[in-house]
């Protein structure tokens, strides 16, 4: 059933597939960015086609930019820096991976960065280790070096919350994958930090009228609000009246129904529909399939699990995979 599609170099620390699963970007502990390609779209065998050193230290996460903006990746390195690299053929020069931009941030590390396409502009949410979140906007798709800071937020549901200097270990961001132009852009964000207010996952929506980001829902019951969040994943929506978001915490994976039409207080109605347990350690990653019906998760225990809902809305683990040599 399983077949090997690529063999990775020694010291590979992270992998990331592009939108169509035809290119693989990998990062290594010594700062190399490798790109794997297949000879044709029918093939599922990938080999490295370029390999460049982008940093002195290790790369911890790679995120592909949406395809409307070309072939580019954002690389988060172990020292917390974030850089953007693009494959481009500039006048008279051969095709090569080029550095477009380095995002500097004094004193804090980048923990996660994710892209969202909104109408004609590209937005990038970046979460930092000091608990700050920045939203950048790209104005010209042909110039990935020019980003404008659109907003700076903190992951709290009411702006009056006060807390000291936060120290965050990880963050997880997931954009609403809908490409529907009538919907306002939104994303969900959760932290794994020592500051309880920051942790719980919140849904942020862009308020076009006032040109600002608003927290409109908190995906945690009152007792779980301070739980550290390991991963969040917003499911593709193929015709449901509500959105589906998965949140992983120490207690397990919770599945939430979120209705995007806000109430009078501007908040969205949310409902926790399942708590899935099974992982011994942290949940490391969660990915919805293209229909938003199956959730695949991986954890620090090395297990890959698949979850689905039955017709009664009961979520169950359907299969699990355990690495075996």
């Amino acid at each position: 059933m399983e077949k090997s599609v690529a063999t990775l170099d020694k010291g590979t620390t992270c992998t990331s597939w592009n939108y169509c699963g035809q290119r693989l970007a990998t990062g290594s502990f010594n700062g190399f960015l490798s790109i794997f390609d297949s000879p044709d779209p029918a093939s599922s065998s990938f080999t490295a086609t370029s390999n460049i050193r982008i940093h002195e230290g290790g790369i911890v996460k790679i995120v592909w930019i949406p395809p409307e903006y070309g072939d580019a990746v954002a690389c988060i390195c172990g020292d917390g820096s974030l850089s953007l690299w693009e494959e481009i053929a500039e006048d008279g020069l051969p095709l090569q991976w080029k550095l477009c931009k380095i995002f500097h941030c004094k004193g804090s590390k980048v923990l996660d960065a994710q892209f969202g396409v909104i109408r004609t502009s590209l937005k990038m949410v970046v979460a930092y280790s000091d608990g700050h979140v920045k939203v950048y906007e790209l104005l010209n798709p042909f110039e990935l070096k020019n980003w404008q800071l659109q907003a700076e937020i903190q992951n709290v549901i009411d702006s009056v919350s006060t807390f000291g200097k936060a120290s965050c270990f990880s963050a997880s961001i997931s954009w609403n994958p809908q490409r529907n132009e009538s919907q306002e852009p939104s994303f969900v964000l959760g932290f794994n930090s020592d500051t309880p207010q920051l942790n719980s996952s919140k849904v942020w929506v862009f308020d076009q009228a006032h040109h600002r980001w608003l927290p409109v829902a908190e995906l945690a019951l009152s007792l779980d609000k301070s739980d550290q969040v390991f991963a969040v994943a917003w499911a593709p929506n193929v015709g449901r009246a509500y959105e589906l978001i998965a949140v992983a915490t120490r207690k397990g994976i919770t599945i939430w129904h979120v209705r995007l039409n806000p109430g009078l207080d501007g908040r969205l109605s949310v409902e926790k529909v399942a708590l899935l347990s099974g992982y011994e350690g942290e949940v490391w990653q969660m990915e919805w399939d293209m229909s938003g019906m199956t959730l695949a998760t991986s954890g620090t225990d090395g297990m890959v699990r698949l979850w689905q809902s039955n017709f009664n809305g009961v979520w169950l683990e359907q299969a699990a995979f355990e690495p075996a040599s």
Partner: protein
Amino acid sequence: MPDVAADSAASASAGELVPFVPDTEIAVVYPLHHGLKPPISRVSISWARGNNLRVSLLRNPPSNSDSDGEIGGKVVEVNLDSGAADVREPAQWRRIAYGSVTPFALLQSRKNSASILSKLQSSPSPFHLDWWEYVMEYSKDIKELLGNPKSNYNPLIEDPKEVLKKGEEPTSLKAAWELMEMFYADKLCQSWLPERLVDWLADYDCLLSGDQPAVHSKLVEFQGTLVTLQVIEDDPKYWEVISSALAVGWLEIVVKLLRLHGSYQLDQISRRETENGLVETVAVLISMMPRMRPELKNGKLGECFKAKPDFMKAWEKWREQITKLDSSAFWVLCDHRQTREGLKNLIQIMLGNTEILCTATSHWIELYISHFLFIRPFTVGFESMYNLAQKCVKMKPMSSPHKLLRLIIGIIGENTEVVLAECSRGFGPWMVTHAIELLTARSDQADFLLHKEHDDIGGISMEELHRLVYAQVLTSHFLTWQIAPVYLTSCMRQGMSLLEVLLYRQPAQHNQLLLKNLEICRLYELDHVSSNIMKIAGVYHWKHGRKGLGVFWLQQARDEFLLNKIAQRLFDSVGKSISGESFKQWEGLIELLGSKSKPAGSLEFLHKYRDFKKLLQQVCDRKTPDAARHAADLLMLLMKNPSTPQRFWLPLLYDSLTLLSWQGRPLLNVSQTNLLLNKLQELSMASLRPGIVATDLPAEALDSVRLALATNLGRAILEEQ
């Protein structure tokens, strides 16, 4: 791990989406073989095409001591779903997948027209009454695909000792399809369902032998020993297989076997006359067995009766003859014990002796069939069929019943959900998606159940869900994804959204694939998707050095925003090197950009600028006064036009030095020259301001132009006087 593909297939995606599966069921853990040296430090996942999950397995970063050249990790792809169980060959599966598209699409379009028609007519339409016929037509087309004609051959010379004829190699997929067809769609066979089941078992009994041998496998085994047997009737196996075959109604096999009896041999017939008479009588009685069915296939034995009273009469008469034979005095004269006992056994079977029927059969379905044939030939209605089945299951319990048997229980138990679940679990998403049409052919209740929207899972109906699951299976493979839209578009809301996601995820950089994608978009009127795909392709090509192709796709996408950005870039680079060779590189692009899109002001300038440059070239080559005058007019137009950026003024004038100092008569009049001088003055003032773009022109350019203009002014004044 081929088994996982079949078993986990259902569990991973479709099979468990039904309420009857116990919630406490523990998920199966499958090993994921990667061949790496442990330990694995990280496992990362990503969904690929359809139901393929890619898992990256990463080893710990190497330490200094670790220099054994071991690889750092692997990416493995796990396919979570195979389309149809039992179809192991990918090519065979694709044949089925592609072949079922047309019948499915045709039926859907008929369904749509039927629903429009029934809306138009308030009274029930005659169309509706004949619906099952359309479904049968569909079913026939699908059935043809499921056959396996590979082993279909007819020998020229019939082997007298060949009791079992080899025909089409049966598949459980086809067996399941036929079950669904006979119970749900085929209206004509409803009056003779038990006999229809007898035929079904005759075709598919061979699939049932697993832990326990079925009648078919017993026959196969016996046939193997047939050539070596000297005195066939002495062998208890001979009588055993005859009774088994009779119990399940394979009359022609029984008769053929009986006629292999030793008493038929010419040298023995005189000695064993009575014995032979008895064998032949039984054989004749068997071949005369009344059957309640409209017809029998060629070579099949029995007498058909369509009407129940006629059948009853014949049945009673037949039973009387058997009873009479049973109590005949000839048995005493039969010396051969095995023959006597064997034949008596057959008579008991025909008289419906439950105990003997139970011994003669292996699986409950065989016993069930024997009940229809010899005990309860009038069984009608699902309830009585179900009760009888339960009785047979009790008499022949099985630890792990075959999936076909589970399906039968579901069908006669009238539990649509179980039927769907069994179809899905046992036969895969292809089966359930296509068999739903059979299920709803005549049943309003099933129709309601399948079309009911389930709020718990987002307002999707079971029918739609199964179609989506199947479409996802199709998208898992590069060679089948193109047919997924047929199924997706048959579910209006969810299907169309999923189709959009699917199209968006196709690689846009491969031209052929891109064209295929666009074709699908055009077919289903997904204009916004196609423009997005073209935009992706446009940006890709532009950024990968194929600028012309990039512009072409962006134009096709009618993406004014990006085209304007490109125009702006062109404009900027042209502005920097107006006199240089690089202009030629851009000329084609300007041409391309201008052909269809509504150009922005800057682009309009570039067009005029290009025309001007061409004209200027002609002037330099031919030195004709007309061309020079024309060029001078164009220069004035450009200089007067507000969309001409200031930074182009000097390059334009510098390029036009030939015109400004034209031999013969001046090309510009006084007012025109004054205007240009004013512009030049403006430019000199502006050049003092910071932020002005420096051009690649020589330092003395401004002075040369000024001088030329001044000379021209002088000449123009003289001329005008």
